[in-house]
């Protein structure tokens, strides 16, 4: 789960990381008020859960409250990468001497958290990483022991941070580790961490991602989820424990297992079709889940055929078949459906579907071919 910049920075602040003064606003009028309270120069920053806000005109500098209101109005009217801007963060502007990149994330290859830092922070950090990898410092953290102060100092040394800032940087690093650990984050990123002209370290921008699988013990964070920023079908899918991603093709798929779901998409493409979605019903999918999945797939108007590919293991094919029947009864789909059931209780599943009007297939290749054909015929 992604958090907004303002949410991330509020968490940072709670853990003792300095952030600029400021607050979030939902209207231009509010933005003006905040600007009045803050005084001085102001930054207006769109709060959307995608990157590239700056290039899209979603971050602006205002010299006074009136200007702040005007710019907030403009930004609140924007749509960035398909997402309408619903909130802006109104921060006091900082005079910047240097921009540092600093993050803690998990390194799956090392099976450990890792600190990443660079003296060349800012929006071009990925380019720096690709072209001048020696400018990036990476230090792994023992997940049982946690971050040790000497490692934070090693980062400071590694990015040639002037010595006068080592103590403050170490405090920020230890605090960011606590943020990462205590929120079950998969990412806690400060970019840029700036040295201001007044010789202070401040986290100017922040980004956090929380492990969805840990939200059960993070009720406060779970409530921060901004569903405005998500595709409604994906919200609906999550409610049922389904993993759904909408795509641009015409063949809907419902598959159990992420690997097989991706493979089914690959094979649809291989036989000339275009997948309309990724949908993994997960292990042990029951009738209710399957029915929800079918509803979600069929809300996509582009779908011209649906491929069900279920290989039973934890998932039992008879349960899936029941779900399909429930959903068909409810949704009364008008597009052709190709179904393939193999594995645990496949026989029972097939029997249940015998009287439903569905195309059946033996192999995945066969199923994909039939789905592609059916979609063409339907046109």
């Amino acid at each position, binding site marked *: 789960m992604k958090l907004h910049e303002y949410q991330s920075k509020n968490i940072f602040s709670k853990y003792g990381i300095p952030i600029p003064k400021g607050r979030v606003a939902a209207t231009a009028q509010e933005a003006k008020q905040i600007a009045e309270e803050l005084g001085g120069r102001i930054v207006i920053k769109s709060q959307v859960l995608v990157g590239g806000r700056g290039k899209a005109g979603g971050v602006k500098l205002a010299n006074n409250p009136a200007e702040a209101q005007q710019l907030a109005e403009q930004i609140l009217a924007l749509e960035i990468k398909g997402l309408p801007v619903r909130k802006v963060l109104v921060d006091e502007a900082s005079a910047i001497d240097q921009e540092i990149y600093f993050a803690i994330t998990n390194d799956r290859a090392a099976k450990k958290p890792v600190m990443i830092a660079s003296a060349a922070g800012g929006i071009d950090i990925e380019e720096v990483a690709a072209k001048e990898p020696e400018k990036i410092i990476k230090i792994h953290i023992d997940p049982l022991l946690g971050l040790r102060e000497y490692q934070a100092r090693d980062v400071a040394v590694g990015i040639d941070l002037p010595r006068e800032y080592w103590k403050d940087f170490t405090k920020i690093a230890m605090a960011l580790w606590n943020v990462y650990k205590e929120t079950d984050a*998969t990412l806690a990123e400060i970019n840029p961490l700036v040295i201001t002209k007044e010789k202070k370290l401040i986290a100017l921008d922040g980004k956090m991602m929380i492990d969805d699988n840990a939200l059960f013990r993070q009720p406060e964070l779970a409530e921060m989820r901004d569903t405005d920023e998500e595709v409604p079908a994906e919200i609906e899918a999550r409610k049922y424990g389904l993993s759904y991603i909408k795509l641009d093709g015409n063949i809907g798929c419902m598959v159990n*297992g992420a690997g097989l779901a991706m*493979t089914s998409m690959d094979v649809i493409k291989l036989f000339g079709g275009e997948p309309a979605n990724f949908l993994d019903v997960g292990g042990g999918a029951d009738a209710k889940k399957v029915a929800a999945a079918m509803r979600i797939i069929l809300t996509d108007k582009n779908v011209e055929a649906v491929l069900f590919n279920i290989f039973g293991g934890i998932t039992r094919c008879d349960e899936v078949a029941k779900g399909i029947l429930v959903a068909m009864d409810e949704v009364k789909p008008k597009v052709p459906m190709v179904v393939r059931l*193999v594995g*645990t209780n496949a026989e029972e599943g097939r029997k249940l579907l015998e009287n439903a009007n569905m195309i059946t297939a033996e192999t995945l290749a066969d199923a994909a071919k039939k789905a592609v054909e059916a979609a063409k015929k339907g046109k």
Partner: protein
Amino acid sequence: MSILVDKNTRLLVQGITGNEGLFHTTQMVAYGTNVVGGITPGKGGEWVLEKIPVFDSVKAAKENTDANATIIFVPARFAPDAMFEAADAGIPLIICITEGVAIPDMMRVRNYLDQKNVRLIGPNCPGLLTPGEAKVGIIPGNIAIAGNVGVVSRSGTLTYEVLYAMKNLGMGASTCVGIGGDPVNGTNFVDVLQMFEDDPNTEKVIMIGEIGGNEEEKAAEFIRTKMTKPVASFIAGQTAPPGKRMGHAGAIIEGGSGTAADKIKALEAAGVKVAKHPEEIPTLLK
């Protein structure tokens, strides 16, 4: 011969009285797997399938059954504790089927288990199948036959596809190892490839990968430099949309690698034949 599990496996089931645990215990026992005990705290003293004793702790189960492997079916929030418990009880092989275990927990589990010389398969995996000897997991037993092809996979159901296609061609598996698709897990491709390379009964290997991470790239390097046995592969996710980006940090840590194209290129450079769809894989080893 086989790797990891066989007729001598004495298996415990953690979460044996739960829905999934009980269902799959029944399936495993029906297959002939030697399930010697189960664990559900608070249900010690009960029996499952009339012959499998239930214990309150792995320690008690180990002491009473001399088990040498355990399979975990408990819910995700309890799975880390179940793995710690099994490792502390001295079980040398842990198979965790549970999906949805949090990454911070898995980093702690993995780093702890590495100190203990314990082998973990999974989590979020279908487990192990040595056809005709032992089914330790949820791979449907009837889709695979015994043979000399080692199968290792990050995926669950996709693995079944491949085993099923193998069977339809009359090709059998020595052992099928589902290592699971989670970002932080136990045993990886290279570990299993090494075991297959060392197993006299395995003559060929099928490796099923997917996008994300760089385990396939490491496996390719291992195959190129250390393996004598032929390997065929499939990589899922060629049409998948890019996953959720982990800020800039993800890009920095993972670099450019992780796409299906990258992985296929690395594998082909290592002499691995890469299939276009899963049912094609076994034909590449004929």
